[in-house]
């Protein structure tokens, strides 16, 4: 809790030029919108790549008109080559994990709303914040540039397992310049996220307005805060790993390539490296990354649900502790990606235990959501539909974690479509649903206009049914031993699975097309949507108390708000109806401290 003198740290005058206002802006709100725009561009590219991949998986020899325009050698006669498939797959995953699932729920919404929800004028280091976005933008350009180098982007998958990723051109198309650009892009991306995380942590700890104790932060703010702590530690490990990978390419080092590596009958000029070292470094980042993608969604969904249930969660604190437990445990479970990697089999059991234990805080979160739904006065709108859909998807993706947490079962399921189905549901679709819920909920505050509800609902129905139609069958494929990262299904035992792949492709094309409804809604509502009131959902947290909508440059005008209540005072009788805003001095109920 801090007084106003402290809260002026991030203060800066309103910009006047177009460039400082919309391009190199110091305003956290503009930076948040820039991150959202980047994520939107990235997700459309990522989805387009997945369409191409799915078409190829359903009909391997299909000529996709115009495909040759995207690649120099990857599509003779518009038919995808094996290497081009792997390149698209790698780019799809990298774009989605880093530039969509990390940027949208965390960097975009967090940037826009965290300072407002804590009652600050801006983040404490606005220049770092601006740099964080532009560095991320450069990282994206570097990644995209690999489409234009001679043999295209890397084909090594988003995990970039060494030594394939470290031996250079001899490893295959894209394994030279493509990998270097990939590693460079990710290292730059890490810098952006480290700068962002520092700002988020400091904003939460030091920039809270008078009366805003930590426990009075809304759950969305808690989600961003916990994520920023994870981001600070996880990206700090990935960045040096990427630098070592680049050095193996350009400086003749052998961090990840052992001696006696023979490719094309040629001994490689490397010695003494460890291939498992890369896996340890990568997954020490990689597993927290899963939670970096999903914890902000948990916070956003909690926030959206509470507002639309018109009642607080069963326990605010238990939810916060559970999200915190997920964050802490996320560092102890990473070895479950490596059960059959060749690391000591005792380690597999050691990593299995926390992986099974992490289901407990996850279950607590789900049970608190469901228990809170009991006795609610639930409003059904696009935002709440996506929030409820998030819960359904999180359950569906979560239960498959029981299987993958066990080394013995992993012998059968490792590297199959079961894993792909699991993470797509839980960190892909669920996280996307969190982003959608947040968008329908906060769009009115960000742009001063309402989104079209009918289009929002159509978008929801197509996405909800479509996502299940795509990703549930992935689990069946995995059980039947369908290996992932195959451009065609050469083994005989996979032949009977091809019709299922065709079904998935059709479902993916349909569901993907439905996302264009969202994009249309976003752009049309931005300019022609019905004007939004300051507090259209009767919310209680500080973003609904700004003097104008969208909020002014310094968020709260001349005077920072004073907070009197816990964040979610719903289901009470007050002068405004069934809620009391955090800034209202009115007493909310018998338990309220005001």
């Amino acid at each position, binding site marked *: 809790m801090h007084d106003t003198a402290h809260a002026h740290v991030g203060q800066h005058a309103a910009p006047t030029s177009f460039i400082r206002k919309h391009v190199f802006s110091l305003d956290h709100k503009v930076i948040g919108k820039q991150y959202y725009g980047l994520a939107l561009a990235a997700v459309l590219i990522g989805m387009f790549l997945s369409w191409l991949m799915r078409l190829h998986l359903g009909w391997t020899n299909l000529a996709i008109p115009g495909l040759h325009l995207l690649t120099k050698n990857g599509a003779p006669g518009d038919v995808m*080559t*094996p290497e081009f498939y*792997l390149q698209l797959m790698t780019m799809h995953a990298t774009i989605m994990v880093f530039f969509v699932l990390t940027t949208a729920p965390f960097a975009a919404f967090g940037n826009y709303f965290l300072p407002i929800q804590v009652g600050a004028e801006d983040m404490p280091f606005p220049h770092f914040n601006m740099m964080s976005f532009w560095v991320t933008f450069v990282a994206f350009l570097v990644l995209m540039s690999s489409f234009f180098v001679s043999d295209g982007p890397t*084909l090594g998958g988003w995990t970039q397992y060494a*030594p*394939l990723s470290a031996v250079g051109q001899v490893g295959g*198309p894209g*394994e030279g310049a493509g990998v270097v650009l990939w590693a460079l892009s990710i290292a730059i991306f890490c810098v952006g996220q480290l700068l962002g995380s520092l700002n988020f942590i400091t904003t939460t700890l030091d920039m809270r307005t008078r009366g805003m104790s930590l426990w009075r932060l809304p759950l969305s703010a808690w989600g961003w805060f916990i994520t920023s702590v994870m981001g600070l530690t996880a990206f700090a490990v990935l960045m040096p790993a990427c630098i070592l990978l680049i050095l193996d390419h350009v400086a003749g080092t052998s961090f990840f390539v*052992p001696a006696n*590596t023979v*490719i094309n*009958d040629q001994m490689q000029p490397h010695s003494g490296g460890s*291939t498992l070292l890369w896996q340890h470094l990568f997954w020490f980042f990689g597993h927290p990354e899963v939670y970096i993608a999903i914890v902000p969604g948990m916070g956003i969904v909690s926030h959206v649900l509470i507002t639309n249930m*018109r009642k607080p*969660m*069963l*326990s605010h604190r238990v939810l916060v502790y559970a999200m915190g437990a997920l964050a802490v445990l996320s560092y102890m479970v990473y070895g479950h990606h490596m059960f*059959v990697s*060749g690391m000591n*089999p005792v380690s597999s059991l050691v990593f*299995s*235990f926390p992986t099974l234990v992490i*289901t*407990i805080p996850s*279950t*607590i979160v789900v*049970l*608190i959501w*469901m*228990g*809170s*739904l*009991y*006795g609610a*006065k*639930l409003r*059904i709108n696009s935002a709440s539909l996506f929030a*409820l859909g998030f819960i359904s998807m999180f359950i*569906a993706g979560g*239960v498959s974690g029981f299987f993958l947490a*066990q080394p*013995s*079962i992993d*012998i*059968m399921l*490792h*590297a199959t479509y079961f894993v792909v189905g699991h993470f797509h549901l839980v960190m892909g679709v669920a996280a996307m649903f969190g982003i959608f819920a947040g968008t329908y909920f906060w769009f009115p505050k960000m742009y001063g206009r309402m989104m079209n509800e009918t289009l929002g*609902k159509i978008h929801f129905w197509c996405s909800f*049914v479509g996502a*299940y139609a795509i990703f*549930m069958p992935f689990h*069946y494929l995995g*059980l039947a*031993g369908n*290996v992932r*990262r195959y451009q*065609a299904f*050469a*083994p005989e035992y996979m032949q009977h699975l091809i019709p299922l792949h065709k079904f998935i492709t059709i479902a993916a094309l349909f569901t993907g097309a439905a996302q264009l409804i969202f994009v249309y809604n976003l752009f049309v509502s931005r300019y022609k949507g019905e004007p939004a009131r300051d507090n259209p959902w009767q919310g209680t947290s500080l973003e609904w108390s700004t003097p104008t909508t969208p909020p002014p440059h310094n968020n709260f005008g001349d005077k920072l708000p004073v907070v009197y209540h816990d964040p979610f005072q719903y*289901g009470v009788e007050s002068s405004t109806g069934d809620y009391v805003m955090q800034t209202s001095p009115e007493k909310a109920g018998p338990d309220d401290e005001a």
Partner: protein
Amino acid sequence: MAKFFAITIFVIAIVSAIPILRHTWWMAEDISTHGAPIDEQMSETMAEAGISFLASQFILGYFIWKFSNPKPGDKIKTFPGGAKAMVWAAFLLVGTEVLALGVFGVKAWANVYFTPPAANAVPVEVQAGQFAFYFRYPGPDGSFGPIHPDMINEANQNFYGLDTDHDADSKDDVVTAEMAVPVNREIHLIMHSKDVGHSFFVPELRVQQDFVPGMDLSVHFTATKIGRYEIVCTQLCGLGHYNMKAYLSVLSLEDFDAWMKKEKAMQ
């Protein structure tokens, strides 16, 4: 709309479960001696995960049905037992489930990884390289000759880099493109990669193990059913990854000996 949503959730949950219950797409038949505990572990996990999935989707759907579209006079209610009940439920239900799965899972895992191969196990070496497996049998002397990576030459079909002129142990080594093993005999498989990461996966055998370049690993198993199976690579190894496969023939002892004789003659 809430009711429609609830019904959609019910239908999706049930439809998702049907292929699992009917085993429409399921694991291949187990042909190993160590696979039974793995399959049992899979069935138990499927039952527990399935019940959790169906129960929670149904409750979610039911609550959406029941508590949406409130009438003006409706008051909110709190779940009896509050958050405490939820935390206890999570610890008791999931905690017990986790503990049980964890404890029984150790047994299935230990079966595979914590027992040494039998002294009379048949040694076979598998070498993975972009994009093929090659297999090596030690011959009558029972020992593998040393590998000279600098002598690897695919054009001369010296896939392993063996120096048969100088290394006595290498002279009787038999290198094959297909793997054959005698039925009901334990196999000690030594795994070696000459280039990048690969993996050795035979679904019927309940064996999946990555190759680690720079480090030789070993697994052991006993195949119990005569037949021809596929070995596939599951670790992304480059553009030909999807096509990196080999056949595993499980043969009667007589057939295995005959096969070995034939392969030996072809060296």
